[in-house]
């Protein structure tokens, strides 16, 4: 039954997909491409009248060069993306000409004695096509509009406004010991005798103790998360997930307000247990299956010596839970990872940094969910 349903869905979706792709084709933007360089070393047989490689052997070397370039490119995938790729590797390899384009032979070196040909090549990888195909072949990407998992998230951007560190508490313990030793000697001469004694005192001091350190307590000012939401939503939606605004969850199914969660993240590094329970419960009541929280901490601000722009660092941390069952299961975790944003002033640099952090965190989340086949 499940198979029949899925098949009919694909059949229904094909015209829509074609229309979508035709629309994209008409927009005709440029692909993001990556150049890859590599060398291929292959043995060859040569022919009866020539010790040089034949045209067919050189053609075979070109195909190997293409595969080698592809392998060099895919070796740079992160763990999650690699897991997803390995599941559909054959699909890519069977259409490698569509992904590895413009293979150029830079030069070749032929060792006629050992009959080995080495070819240096530069190939262009159509990264847009690779990412789009991976996305389309992922479990989430194969959902039609309205069929993907409902995904809601609460991301808080915050900036440290105070950091309180208590002085280290040192407890010293000392113990003093003293000991005396006496020696007495007697000397006699005729009828008289005299005695003398020496007393030596030894002091021993032992010190010790412990130092008690306390963690720095930080207070944060929570700033607008609109840019984060927009960037995160863009990545998740493109990957096939159905993004639901958390405020809509609260409206429809109750749950703790976003502002309460924001103020909790302003004081602590995590939300309270009751707030988390309330947010997850309400989301579950609204049929949301994936729930994510995260913080993006705005850090050091300085001038980038290379570009001369203002530079703001942010640190992102995120977790995603599958909340379909009674006990939420963590299905993706990101960071903490630092990103730097540049801009002509602090404000622009900060927004760029937040947008970059949100986008990269979103991509990492999508890669991890795709790798697990979560749709």
């Amino acid at each position, binding site marked *: *039954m499940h*198979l*029949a349903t*899925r*098949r009919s869905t*694909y*059949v229904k979706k*094909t015209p829509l*997909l*074609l229309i979508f*792709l*035709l629309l*994209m*084709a008409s*927009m*005709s*933007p*440029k*692909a*993001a*491409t990556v*150049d890859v*360089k*590599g*060398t291929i070393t292959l043995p060859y047989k040569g022919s009866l009248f020539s010790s040089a490689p034949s045209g067919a052997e050189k053609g075979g070397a070109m195909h190997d060069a293409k595969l080698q370039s592809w392998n060099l490119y895919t070796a740079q995938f992160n763990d999650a993306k690699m897991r997803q790729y390995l599941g559909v590797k054959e*699909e890519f390899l069977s*259409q490698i000409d*569509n*992904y590895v*384009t*413009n293979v*150029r032979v*830079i*030069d*070749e*070196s032929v060792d006629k004695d050992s009959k080995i040909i*080495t070819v*240096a090549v*530069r190939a*262009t990888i*159509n990264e*847009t*096509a690779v990412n*789009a*195909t991976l996305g*389309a*072949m992922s479990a989430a990407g*194969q959902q039609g509009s309205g069929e993907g998992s409902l995904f809601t998230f609460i991301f808080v951007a915050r900036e440290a406004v105070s950091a309180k560190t208590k002085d280290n508490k040192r407890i010293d313990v000392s113990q003093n010991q003293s000991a005396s030793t006496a020696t007495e000697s007697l000397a006699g001469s005729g009828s008289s005798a005299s005695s003398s004694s020496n007393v030596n005192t030894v002091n021993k001091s032992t010190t010790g103790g412990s130092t008690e350190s306390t963690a720095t307590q930080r207070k944060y000012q929570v700033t607008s998360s609109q840019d984060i939401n927009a960037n995160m939503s863009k990545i998740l939606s493109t990957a096939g997930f159905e993004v639901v605004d958390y405020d809509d969850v609260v409206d429809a199914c109750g749950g703790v307000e976003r502002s309460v969660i924001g103020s909790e993240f302003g004081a602590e590094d995590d939300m309270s247990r009751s707030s988390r329970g309330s947010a997850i419960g309400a989301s579950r009541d609204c049929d949301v299956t994936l729930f994510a929280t995260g913080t993006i901490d705005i850090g050091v601000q300085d001038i*980038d*010596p*290379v*570009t*001369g*722009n203002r530079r703001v660092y942010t640190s992102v941390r995120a977790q995603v839970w599958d909340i379909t069952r009674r006990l939420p299961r963590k299905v993706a975790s990101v960071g903490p990872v630092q990103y730097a944003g*540049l801009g*002509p002033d602090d404000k622009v640099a900060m927004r760029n940094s937040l947008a970059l952090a949100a986008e990269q965190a979103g991509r990492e989340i999508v890669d991890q969910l795709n790798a697990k086949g979560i749709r």
Partner: protein
Amino acid sequence: MKRFSTAKESVACLRDSASLVRRQCSVLTVFLVLWSHGAGAVELYYAGFSFAGDYSQNQTRFPVAADLSTRKNADGLLVLDAALSMVVTEDYSNSVKLIKTLGVQNSGASQLSIAFALSEESTEEVEWGGQILYIYRVIAQVLVFDFDDKKLISNFPAMLQYQDIVEEKRSAEDHYEVFERIYLDTDAVSTSIFREWVRRLNSITIKQNYSAYLQLTDVVLDPELKAQMPSHLTLPDAYASQVAQQFEFILSEQQEVSLIPFTKGQAIGKKMAARFANGDSFQLALPEPDFTMTLTVHPFKYLQQSSTVSDKHAFGSFVTLAVEQPDLNKIYLDMRFKNVNVAVFDKRDETVVDKWQSFQTSLRSLFVNLATQISVPDKKLLASMTKDKSAEKQLKQFEEVIKKCI
């Protein structure tokens, strides 16, 4: 609700579904490839004036241009941008369509962009027969880059050298005025760097992509040469960069080849920073070179012959140029070349020559000869440059390398 009666039927349906997914993915892939390649004629977006290299070094490397970069004219436009823009409007004649009014911006669409990238502003002071010779040099790159991907597509150096012989030593203010004229006096066609840059831009072939890239990756100075260097060139790296930029300019212009810029001490992680006069800045990714050049500069030699009526001075310059494919360890050219410039002066003039400056002139002549011999070998000239019998063959191999990078 359909139920499968047999395992065979179930497997067949599975196969159908898988086949459908594959077909759908094939359709998707074909369209993505067509979509992403987006055919069309090459168009260039004008990005304006920029500084090449780290912002933190701008005041040191280009003191006058860095100062001028904040100055605005009566219309509120930045003077450097305004002067360059005017020259581009007046002189641009390359066959590639230049879109000048929009500027570059994040559009998500293909934007092959072009910028004036200033890479050197320097002054040399040389004692010359009781007078002082000043050499003012400005080098700028015709930087073609992909704005969206922030990567370098091609690079062609342009150079303006202006010399002045004066009786008295010049002050910093005097030098400032000369450079200000080089940048802003665009009516003086022969001494305007912007006119020279556009002339260079008009002469090049602009392409969306290149098959291979060539780069001068190292300039090695012989230890004996370092001992010959005058005291004002205290940093050998600075002289190496100067030699590199002159060699790049001459080779690129003679052979019309794009070169990845020589970036000793400037680029980090194969990136080159570009900061525009309007404050925009970004780092361009430099392609990895497919072919590398290494230039070794050997000690200069000087000879003098005097007769009753004249003094004859000979200034010899010597370099070894090696061209290699680094992945294959294949050497195309590895040869020592020389050039001797001869100057004859009337003995009555009692001319005092500046050896170092004459060596530099000899070196530049050597670069010009070498760059022309690659494609138009002259047996007589080549024989005077090297004794190696394989010179013509090796230069031919170098020419083949250059052809792959054009």
